[in-house]
């Protein structure tokens, strides 16, 4: 019987033919934790009496509160640094950036099983890896035993058809999908994407789609690999990591959704759930206090280029703060070399060190009471950005940049040359 991408990768990692619904034990290739979840992983790892990490790579990312804004977190960071000194685990420290971006640049390979104590680990699905988020204890076991228990998910197929209009991006596609199927529309399932639209999306744009699979409740967001994947790996100096990953033609899907993107408008998620989406024509005019461009969703070089193309020669509205956080050191350096920082600085932006930035509500742009932020991040839950009296709106980097100029939610197509 034909297999979906999820079933293919999990069969290989379990060493047998798996079927949806089955509980399996699977070999882990890559495992990650971050500064919010990692200290608990270390505590549990030590309780088990494990001595060293088993996966090919176990990586501890200091990205959520980096650099540390307070002593408790500085101490938490040191738990991770000390763990790396006594094991094969690697630390990705302050200034390196967000785990999911660095995994995409340096580590995750098509066909891998990547588990991470961070819900947006699903980003790796954009490179054809079965990549999923779980808890700190799971990661302690993945570190110590080199394997995890998994329930094999059924797969929902999303066929993306048509031609993506100008001013509309992969962020708009995935917000549209989540708005359509709901924030629990794919709970426990693997989402797999296919169709002619993928050819119109760069590897970076694809990562944005996989990144948000969890916002529909999914376990993974899988995209087949192709020449675009290969070119991305080559650009990052690891062409040899390429492997063709695709579903069998006779694979069985629990549901198939066909999405025509040809008439899609920019999309905005309103507070306080990601599926509360509106078209830009029904969203524009909402006054905002802050714009944030960055994160594992939309803090890549392509995102910053799009934002810069809109902000070039313009200034942010005087009543708002514009915060820009490149997702990784590599993105940061590219943006600097390409002159994007000049554009951002002249536009009145505050550019912060690579990392998660204000997305997690710890630092670098916590909202005041009754304030509204338009962000390129993936999540707008009540209290997410540090204040339950604030409101979070989600959109693409283009919509964010255009809105920074006017001080209200704005259609980016008004600013395209």
């Amino acid at each position, binding site marked *: 019987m034909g297999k979906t991408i999820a079933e293919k990768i999990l069969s290989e990692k379990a060493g047998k033919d798996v079927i949806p619904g089955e*509980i*399996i*034990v699977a070999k882990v290739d890559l495992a990650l934790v971050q500064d*919010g*979840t990692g*200290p*608990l992983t270390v505590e*549990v790892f030590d*309780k*088990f009496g494990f001595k060293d990490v088993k996966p090919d790579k176990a990586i501890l990312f200091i990205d*959520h*509160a980096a650099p540390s804004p*307070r002593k*408790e*977190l500085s*101490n*938490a960071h040191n*738990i991770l640094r000390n763990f790396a000194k006594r094991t094969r685990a690697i630390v990705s420290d302050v200034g390196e950036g967000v785990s999911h971006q660095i995994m995409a640049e340096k580590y995750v390979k098509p066909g891998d099983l990547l588990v*991470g*104590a*961070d*819900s947006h*680990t699903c980003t790796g699905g954009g490179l054809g890896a079965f990549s999923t*988020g*779980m*808890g*700190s*204890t*799971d990661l302690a*076991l993945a570190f110590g*035993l080199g*394997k995890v*228990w998994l*329930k094999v998910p059924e797969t929902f197929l999303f066929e993306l058809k048509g031609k993506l209009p100008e001013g509309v991006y992969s962020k708009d596609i995935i917000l549209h999908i989540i708005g359509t199927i709901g*924030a*629990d529309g794919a*709970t*426990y399932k693997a989402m797999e994407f296919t169709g002619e639209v993928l050819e119109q999306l760069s590897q970076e744009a694809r990562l944005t789609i996989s990144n948000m699979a*969890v916002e529909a*409740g*999914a*376990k993974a967001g899988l995209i087949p690999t192709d020449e675009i994947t290969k070119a991305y790996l080559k650009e990052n100096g690891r062409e040899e990591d390429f492997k063709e990953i695709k579903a069998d033609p006779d694979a069985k899907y629990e549901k198939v959704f066909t999405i025509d993107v040809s008439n899609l408008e920019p999309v905005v998620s309103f507070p*306080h*759930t990601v599926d509360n989406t509106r078209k830009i024509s029904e969203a524009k005019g909402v006054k905002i206090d802050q714009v944030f461009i960055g994160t594992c969703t939309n803090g890549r070089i392509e995102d910053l280029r799009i934002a810069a193309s809109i902000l070039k020669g313009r200034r942010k509205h005087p009543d708002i703060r514009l915060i820009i956080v490149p997702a990784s050191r590599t993105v940061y350096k590219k943006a600097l070399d390409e002159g994007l920082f000049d554009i951002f600085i002249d536009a009145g932006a505050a550019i912060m060190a690579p990392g998660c930035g204000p997305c*997690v*509500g*710890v630092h670098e742009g*916590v909202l005041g009471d009754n304030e509204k932020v338009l962000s390129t991040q993936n*999540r707008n*839950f*009540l*209290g*997410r*950005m*540090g*204040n*339950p009296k604030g409101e979070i709106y989600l959109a693409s980097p283009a919509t964010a940049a255009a809105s920074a100029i006017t001080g209200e939610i704005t259609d980016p197509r008004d600013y395209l040359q």
Partner: protein
Amino acid sequence: MILKGKVWKFGDDISTDHIAPGRYFHLRTNLPELAKHVLEDAREDFASKVEKGDIIVAGRNFGLGSSREHAPRIIKLAGVAAIIAKSFARIFYRNAVNIGLPLIEIKEADEIDEGDVLEIDLANGIVKNTTKGKEYKFVPMPKFMLDVINEGGIENYISKYGDYKI
């Protein structure tokens, strides 16, 4: 295992940010302190009033959002014996199994009210509302997950068996 307790009601889409808000990120290495804020952004009085053995009953997609295992851990630490919801988010469900906090999905969660007393039979898949005299059936967890719950979590399970027994 039979669990008996009184109900706290919550609505749909209770996220990990409601349960363990990001502004207490620095307390993640101090679970007893973090537990004082459990579910604070959904119900401010919950942490101070919840009693050992109480049961949470909620709507759709309970626990959506982050992978923070601290969320189910502080719910358990606060004394909650089980959570019943119309549905659960995946990572929260997995984390709860791993730490030995039973979760039950029943569609009729709306029929249960705050303060009702429930009896839950995990192995046989029965929830009895002794206040209202009603009974609901649910599909018990697969054997592996039930074994983990019965051991009180995967830490005890792995300590006992040395590996996953699947």
